[in-house]
């Protein structure tokens, strides 16, 4: 009867030690619709660090993200979250350990903004940490600059504003692992920076952050580690300065890019190589792209087994 009413004695998670593995994929294979989307992923997310997942469309970023969030089952290999196989957690226990920001923020009914953020506190209902609810909600809304929307409903917000409210909800959940799927997609320049700064702050406070990004510049500037996905495998993994180089990114994205250190900060800057615009050739010449091969690329720079 107690479980019917949703009140159960839950074991509260402890703060992870710095560098502790919060989620990891080992030899992860996932098939979707008969296609092998992930083919042998080795990856771990650690406490105190921002891990960025980058890669071209269809490389398997969202699938890997879904597997780390325990939305998808592994066909082979394992995903462990907080030292337990992802499938063995109950939804309620998992919600105390990892928060997820999905790619699109939808809401069936026009809840007021503050109630949406407060939904992030739902997993803590009935636990000792329930007392932090108001504080967590206020803090998350202040951090994401959504406090000004308090009286409005979610439906009355623009796409970028909704995205920030959704982020505030995930932050209010106050879990030690934070998974963000393209949190900057709908945001303006200022708020893109804001979101990544929040990621850094959370990492500095000892949480682990996994973030899917399309903007390589943001990844280079804010991530401790990046994993470049390519055709269901990790093509390279490490610090942005090590991983981002012309050859690798040009191959993975099938688009010539230049990587050079920023003159002031020294962070790697990634820019597509563009033809000089001239009146004679207004359209850039098509770039010879390497033909994508179903065979795993030989260049696995991290030297990890390829499943």
């Amino acid at each position: 009867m107690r479980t019917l009413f949703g009140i159960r004695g839950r074991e509260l998670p402890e703060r992870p030690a710095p560098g502790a593995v919060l989620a990891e994929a080992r030899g992860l294979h996932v098939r979707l619709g008969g296609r092998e989307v992930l083919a042998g992923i080795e990856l771990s997310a650690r406490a105190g660090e921002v891990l960025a997942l980058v890669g071209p469309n269809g490389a398997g970023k969202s699938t890997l993200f879904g597997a780390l969030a325990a939305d998808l089952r592994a066909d082979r290999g394992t995903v462990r979250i907080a030292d337990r196989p992802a499938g063995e957690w109950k939804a309620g226990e998992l919600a105390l350990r990892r928060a997820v920001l999905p790619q699109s923020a939808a809401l069936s009914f026009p809840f007021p903004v503050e109630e949406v953020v407060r939904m992030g506190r739902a997993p803590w209902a009935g636990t000792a940490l329930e007392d932090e609810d108001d504080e967590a909600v206020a803090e998350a809304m202040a951090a994401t600059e959504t406090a000004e929307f308090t009286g409005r409903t979610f439906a009355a917000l623009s796409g970028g504003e909704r995205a920030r409210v959704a982020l505030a909800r995930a932050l209010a959940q106050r879990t030690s692992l934070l998974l963000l799927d393209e949190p900057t997609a709908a945001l303006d320049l200022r708020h893109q920076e804001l979101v990544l700064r929040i990621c850094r702050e959370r990492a500095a406070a000892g949480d682990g952050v996994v973030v899917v990004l399309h903007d390589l510049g943001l990844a280079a500037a804010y991530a401790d580690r990046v994993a470049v996905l390519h055709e269901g495998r990790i093509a390279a993994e490490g610090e942005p300065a090590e991983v981002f180089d012309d050859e690798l990114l040009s191959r993975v994205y099938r688009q010539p890019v230049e990587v050079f250190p920023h003159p002031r900060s020294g962070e790697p800057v990634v820019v597509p190589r563009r033809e000089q615009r001239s009146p004679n050739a207004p359209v850039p010449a098509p770039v010879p792209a390497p033909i994508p091969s179903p065979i795993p690329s030989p260049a696995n720079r991290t030297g990890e087994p390829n499943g």
Partner: protein
Amino acid sequence: MSTEAESRAPEAGSAEAGTAVRPARTPVPPAAVPRGRRSTAYLLTAGLLGALFLVALVSAGYGAYDIPLSDVIASARHRMGLGGQPLDRVGESVLWNVRLPRVVLALLVGASLGCAGALMQGVFGNPLAEPGIIGISSGAAVGAVASIALGLTFFGNWTITVFAFAAGLVTVLLVYALSRSGGKTEVVTLILTGIAVNAFAGALIGLFIFFADNAQITQITFWQLGSLSQATWPKVLAVLPCTVLGLLIAPFYARKLDLLSLGERSARHLGVDVERLRIVLILVVALLTAAAVAVAGIITFVGLLVPHLLRMANGPGHRFLVPGSALGGALVLALGDLAARTVAEPAELPLGVLTALFGSPFFFWLLRRTRRKQGGWA
């Protein structure tokens, strides 16, 4: 733009309330909502309960055989052993064996329909889900008609209810399976599924009527129009367990329904066991719909109208919406039944006809309003 105005208007000054309260940070009970909204919820609940009590009293006294309000109260007090005095023999009999079962039945049926509507809209994540529109009521009706036409009686008094429940359950599951894709229900798919289900159920009912004899046909026809005129205490007893069970379970899932409005995946990320939530609530919806359909036939629009009005008044939070819709549904149906049996005295309008008569224009208004504000349901 769409919903800003509608949610602001009723809770005047929630913006101030929300920001003014924050810095003080007084210990607030868990899951506190902005203060403005809370007091609206209390006010609405009190208002609904008061209106319900009043309508029940008036309904008990008013009719072909008028009993003054004071006599109704006196007789009730007498029965409860709180003084007062009984009426004459006819009066007592009219009040306790004709009127009261009818009032109670109206309350039960209305509460079931209102609550079932709110739950379905939450589970489907779709404001148009309603037992009547998407065919659950017709599905339950097939079971009920079958049991009448085939003269089945193995569960005694409960036979019609049991059959309505079984058929209703199958229908909800069917609609749910057919109308969902990728974890959500599109309005168009849902409505089209409803059309198909209603058509199929109509055909089955037609078949049963074709094979029924004259007496059964009369019984079925009256029942189908939706009426409480045959109300007796045994009938009340036949639906009471379903309704009470459904109404007791439903509020415990209110908070999870709030989370479900974020979508299935996000609800799961927040710790909701979505599969179990769905199964339990579909069972509850089937229970409630069956209870209503078994005694009162197909009564449409209550489950649509009541939750919508309450959402406009107090926002979409299910902790108020689910029990509130039960109260609101009971009120609407008690009023409806009072009108049905008094407007065309001594004749009696079928209740289902009356609710559809008032419900359909409301539906039109809702369509136009949604279209104006957010470009329609998509």
